[in-house]
C-alpha cells in the first residue's frame, strides 16, 4: 500500500497548481530604511490566512503591495501566476480606516463598486447584488444612511459589504476590527466567520489580535517588527470548524496555538529590544551624516504627515 501510494503522491505534487497568491523576495521601502525585506508568501485558493504583527511593522504596506496600490522595490507579487501591476477589483480591499465616501449613502457606496465591476448587468440585477451585500452584513435598515450617521462597527461592515459585493477573487482585510470595542469586535468576528463559511473566499486578514486570528484563520503568519520586517514561520490552525468562541477558550489545542503564536511575537519583541540596547551600548557610533543638515536627512513619514506637508507646500 505504502509503496504504491508514493508515486501517486509525487504525481499529485508535480501537478499541484502554482499557489493562488505568491510573494517572492518582496522588498519595499519609502526612501528611508526598508519597511519590508524579503517577504515570501504562498497562499492557496480558498485559504484563510491571518497575518499578525506589531503596530507600524508594515502590515498595511504588505496589503497595499498585494492590492497593487504600491509597487515592490524588488521581488514579485503574483496572483494566479500573473504578476500584479496595479490595483483592480479582483482583489477586494477592506481598508484599515473604512475608506467610505462620506457623501454617498451605504447603498451608493456599495453601488459605486458594483456598477464598476458588473457594468453589463441590468440595473435591477445590480441593485439586487447591492441589497444582498447589505443584508449579508446585517445593515438593511441603514441602507440609505450616510457614513457619518453610522457607528464605527457599522461603517466597517459597509466596507466589508462593498468588498464582498465586488465578488473578488481574494479579500484583503487590513485590521478591519482593531478600531472597535471588544464587544462589537467579537460580534463582527462571528459575522466574518459566517460569511467566510458561506462562500470560502481566499482571505488575507491583517490583525494584531491573536485570538481573532485563531478564531478565523486556517494559517497564521507572524510579521516580524520593522524596519526590515519579514514574515515568520506560519502556524497551521488545526481547530475544527465552525469554531465557537466559548468552547475554544477551554480547548487545549487552542491554548497551545495561542501560546505558540504569542511567544513567536514576543520573541520578535525581545529581539527588537535586544538590538536596540546593543546599539546603545556600542561605544563609538559616529554617524557619518552628522554634518548633513537635519532637514535633508530622510525619515520615514507617517501617511498623515505626508498629506499635510503636500497641502502646506501647495498653499
Amino acid at each position, binding site marked *: 500500500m505504502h509503496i504504491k501510494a508514493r508515486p501517486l503522491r509525487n504525481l499529485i505534487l508535480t501537478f499541484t497548481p502554482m499557489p493562488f497568491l505568491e510573494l517572492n523576495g518582496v522588498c519595499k521601502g519609502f526612501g528611508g530604511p526598508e519597511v519590508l525585506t524579503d517577504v515570501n508568501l504562498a497562499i492557496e485558493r480558498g485559504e484563510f490566512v491571518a497575518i499578525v504583527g506589531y503596530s507600524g511593522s508594515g502590515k498595511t504596506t504588505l496589503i497595499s503591495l498585494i*492590492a497593487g*496600490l504600491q509597487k515592490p522595490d524588488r521581488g514579485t507579487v503574483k496572483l494566479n501566476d500573473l504578476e500584479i501591476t*496595479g*490595483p*483592480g*477589483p479582483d*482583489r*477586494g*480591499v477592506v*481598508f484599515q*480606516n473604512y*475608506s467610505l*465616501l*462620506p*457623501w454617498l449613502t451605504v447603498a451608493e457606496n456599495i453601488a*459605486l*463598486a458594483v456598477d*464598476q*465591476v458588473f457594468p453589463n448587468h441590468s440595473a435591477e440585477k445590480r441593485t439586487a447584488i447591492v441589497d444582498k451585500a447589505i443584508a449579508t452584513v446585517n445593515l438593511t435598515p441603514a441602507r440609505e444612511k450616510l457614513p457619518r450617521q453610522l457607528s464605527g462597527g457599522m461603517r466597517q461592515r459597509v466596507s466589508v459589504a462593498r468588498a464582498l459585493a*465586488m465578488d473578488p477573487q481574494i479579500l484583503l482585510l487590513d485590521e478591519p476590527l482593531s478600531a472597535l470595542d471588544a464587544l462589537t469586535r467579537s460580534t463582527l468576528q462571528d459575522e466574518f466567520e459566517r460569511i467566510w463559511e458561506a462562500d470560502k473566499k481566499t482571505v488575507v486578514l491583517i490583525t494584531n489580535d491573536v485570538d481573532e486570528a485563531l478564531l478565523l484563520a486556517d494559517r497564521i503568519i507572524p510579521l516580524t517588527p520593522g524596519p526590515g520586517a519579514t514574515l515568520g514561520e506560519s502556524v497551521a490552525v488545526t481547530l475544527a470548524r465552525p469554531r465557537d468562541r466559548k468552547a475554544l477558550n477551554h480547548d487545549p489545542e487552542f491554548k497551545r496555538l495561542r501560546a505558540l503564536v504569542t511567544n513567536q511575537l514576543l520573541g520578535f519583541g525581545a529581539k527588537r529590544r535586544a538590538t536596540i540596547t546593543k546599539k546603545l551600548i556600542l561605544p563609538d557610533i559616529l554617524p557619518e551624516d552628522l554634518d548633513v543638515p537635519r532637514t535633508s536627512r530622510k525619515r520615514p513619514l507617517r*501617511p498623515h504627515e505626508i*498629506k499635510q506637508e*503636500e*497641502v502646506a507646500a*501647495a*498653499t
Partner: protein
Amino acid sequence: MNKFKLDWLILPLLGIAVILGLWALFSATWAKDLPSPLKTWESSKPYIVEPFAKRGEMDQGILRFTWYSLTLVAQGYALALIIGTPIGFFLGLSKGFTKTFDPIIQILRPVSPLAWLPLGLVLFLGTGKEAGTYGALFTIAICAMWPTVLNTAVGVRAVPQDYLNVGRVLKLSRWKTLTKILIPATLPYMFTGFRLSLGIAWLVIVAAEMLTGRPGVGGFLWQEYNALIYEHIILSIIVIGLVGFVLDRLMSLLEQRFKTA
C-alpha cells in the same frame, strides 16, 4: 442669564446708533459738506420708497440700479467660476501645471480691478457701444476668479489618499474618478472659493460702473457725486454694503450645506 437674551438684537442696534451719532456729530462740526443722517434720509426717500421706479436713465429706484448691477455681477461671476474651477483642478492635479502657472497667477492676483478695466475696454473696443459691458465682465471675471482657483487647487490636493485608493481599486475611469471622488471631496473648498469670489465680484462691479458710467449702484454713486448730491453717495454705500452682506450670507449658507455633505 435671561437678561442677555436680546443681545443679538440690542447690541447691533447700539452699534448702529453709535455710528449714526458720530456721523451726525461730524456733519455738524468739522465735515460741513457731509450730509447729516436726517438730510440723507429725506433726499434718499424717493429712491427707497419707490425702489423700482424708472424716471430716467440715471434716475431710477435704488433697487432697480442694484438689479442692473447684480445681473452684470452674475454674468461676470459665472464666467469667473467657469474659468476658475477647471484651472483650480489642473493646478491641484498636476505638479507640472502648478510649476508652470503658479508664478504668473501670483503676479496677476494682486492686480487691482482699476488696472484691469482699461485693458478690458481696449480688448473689446471692436464691440463699440458694448465695450463697457464686456470690459466690465472681463474685469469681474479676472479679478474674482483667484479665490476659486486657489481654493479649488488646495481642495484637490487635500483629497484623502484613501478615497483615491478606493477609486484605484475599483479601476474608476478618469472621468468617474473626477465626478465620483474628486469633485465631491473638493466641494467644501470650492464653495469657500466661490463665496470669496462673489465678494470680490461685488467689489469690482462698483468700480467698473464708476469708470464706465453704466447704470447701476456704482454708476449712480459716481453720477451723484458729480451732480453734488452727496446724500446719494451715502445711500449707495449703504445699499452696496447691505447687498454684499446678503450675498455673503447666502453663499455661506450654501457653503455650510456642502461642508456637512
